[in-house]
């Protein structure tokens, strides 16, 4: 069948010219891509693929153009001795391009795994170096934490023993005090008000009542009774305590700032006792800051631990390190004789423990103190669990 060769000739000539241009462009671009980052595996792959492909099509196209120019109507189109050479080059370049693809597609994942592992090792090494650099600090931090825990446990044990002792003493003293009070009141009934004996008996009654109050405080410290829990907003309790204290220290011009966490919801607690603790802490803070001092009360919800942290911080004189260990001991006070019984913090400690919470103190002499009350967030469902 005789057919026109024009379409084939046109496509071949124009196509060959274009193939030479684009083949060389492909090699140039692949080379540039590889030069930008010689270690990049994708760049290496594309260069290795482009070079045999570009060479193949450049040689074949150039060959065709030369044939068409010098042997326009020859059949076969080129001298026969060139055929093995052309076949060999074609095979080599085609197989070369195919091998590059097969090699890279097989090794790509392996390379990826190796480099992913290498990156992980680098990250781990960096972390290890960082860890090593901060190891001393971390060890110190952990040691301090352990020591603190140890101290807290020792304190808890000591206070428990003191509480047991106090409870026994309070019980033994409470009965005679009741008898003293009763008989004093009976004797007073027979005396004329205003007489010397009456005034003497009043003094006895007053001191007996003081003793009774101290005994009651001791019992509060040691008591392990069920708290009377009701659903209360801790923020309301804090406001009550602040109001109470501000009335008492108005002359000192003390500023009490609050920073209350809205996430803290009403919870079950012994409202009266917790108020007593907060009043106690704020009063102590007022005494520590003196005139024109600043007290800050913060609340924060620790949702994962189901706890509320109430922080009472002051910028007062602080507490000496030697005193911090004994701060919750009954009858321990740094105040002058007659100004405090030393039972306030001990009672607060007892109340918080009785409510399933914890009370912590940190202080820097000259810079102030921070008391942190940690209370469990109790709902109606688990309110009895912490009694």
């Amino acid at each position, binding site marked *: 069948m005789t057919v026109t060769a024009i379409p084939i000739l046109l496509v071949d000539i124009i196509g060959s010219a274009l193939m030479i241009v684009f083949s060389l462009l492909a090699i140039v671009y692949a080379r540039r891509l590889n030069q930008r980052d010689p270690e990049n595996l994708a760049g290496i792959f594309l260069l290795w693929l482009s070079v045999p492909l570009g060479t193949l099509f450049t040689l074949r196209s150039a060959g065709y153009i030369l044939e068409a120019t010098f042997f326009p109507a020859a059949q076969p189109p080129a001298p026969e001795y060139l055929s093995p050479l052309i076949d060999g080059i074609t095979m080599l370049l085609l197989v070369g391009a195919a091998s590059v*693809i097969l090699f890279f597609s097989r090794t790509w994942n392996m390379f990826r795994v190796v480099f992913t592992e290498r990156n992980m090792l680098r990250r781990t090494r960096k972390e290890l170096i960082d860890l090593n650099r901060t190891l001393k600090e971390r060890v110190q931090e952990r040691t301090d934490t352990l020591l603190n825990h140890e101290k807290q446990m020792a304190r808890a044990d000591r206070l428990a023993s003191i509480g047991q002792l106090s409870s026994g003493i309070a019980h033994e003293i409470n009965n005679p005090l009741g008898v003293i009070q009763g008989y004093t009141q009976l004797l007073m009934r027979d005396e004329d008000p205003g007489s010397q004996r009456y005034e003497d008996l009043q003094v006895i009654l007053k001191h007996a009542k003081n003793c009774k109050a101290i005994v009651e405080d001791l019992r509060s410290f040691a008591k392990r009774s069920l708290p009377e829990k009701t659903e209360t907003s801790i923020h309301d309790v804090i406001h009550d305590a602040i109001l109470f204290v501000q009335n008492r220290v108005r002359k000192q011009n003390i500023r009490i700032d609050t920073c209350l966490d809205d996430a803290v919801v009403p919870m079950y607690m012994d409202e009266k006792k917790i108020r007593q603790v907060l009043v106690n802490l704020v009063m102590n803070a007022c005494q520590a800051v003196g005139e024109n001092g600043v007290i800050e009360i913060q609340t924060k919800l620790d949702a994962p631990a189901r706890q509320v942290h109430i922080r009472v911080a002051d910028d007062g004189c602080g507490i000496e390190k030697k005193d911090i260990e004994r701060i919750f001991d009954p009858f321990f006070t740094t105040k002058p004789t007659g100004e405090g019984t030393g039972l306030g913090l001990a009672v607060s400690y007892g109340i918080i423990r009785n409510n399933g919470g914890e009370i912590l103190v940190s202080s820097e002499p000259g810079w102030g103190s921070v008391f942190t009350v940690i209370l469990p967030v109790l709902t109606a469902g688990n309110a009895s669990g912490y009694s």
Partner: protein
Amino acid sequence: MAARPHGSPVGAAVVLFSHLLFIISMAILTGWISRRGDTVRSGWREIRYSAIFFIHWSAFAFTAYLLEDPSGWIAASRIGSWTLYIESAGGHAFLVWIYYLVRLDQLLSVPAMVFLVLGLARLLAQAKLTPPDENDPAGDRTEGVREDGV
């Protein structure tokens, strides 16, 4: 251009084998790019198109060689400068037209190379915008290859 006579049957067989291997490898490249999720990414998407065109080009060239040389089903010769005489061994006209069609293989090889150049140019442009990642020298930093290497 594809269908040029070979010096010997061995030469023709070798070239046919090369084309087969080339088709298989390009098919693997296409699948590999697809599996890596690069088909939607500029650069690799064009390279995949290029591989698809190369597969078809190679299939055309393979068919032209097969018809002409080892099988002898087609005998083609030039008559003058602008005419071609094509003869089918069994007198099948469709073989003649198939042969005529596959002789136009440049219609496939040119787009294949154009797409390869486009893909490389786009990858190069992206590489210029992205600094080399020292932590990932094996990776395709121009495209944000997944760490699992897929």
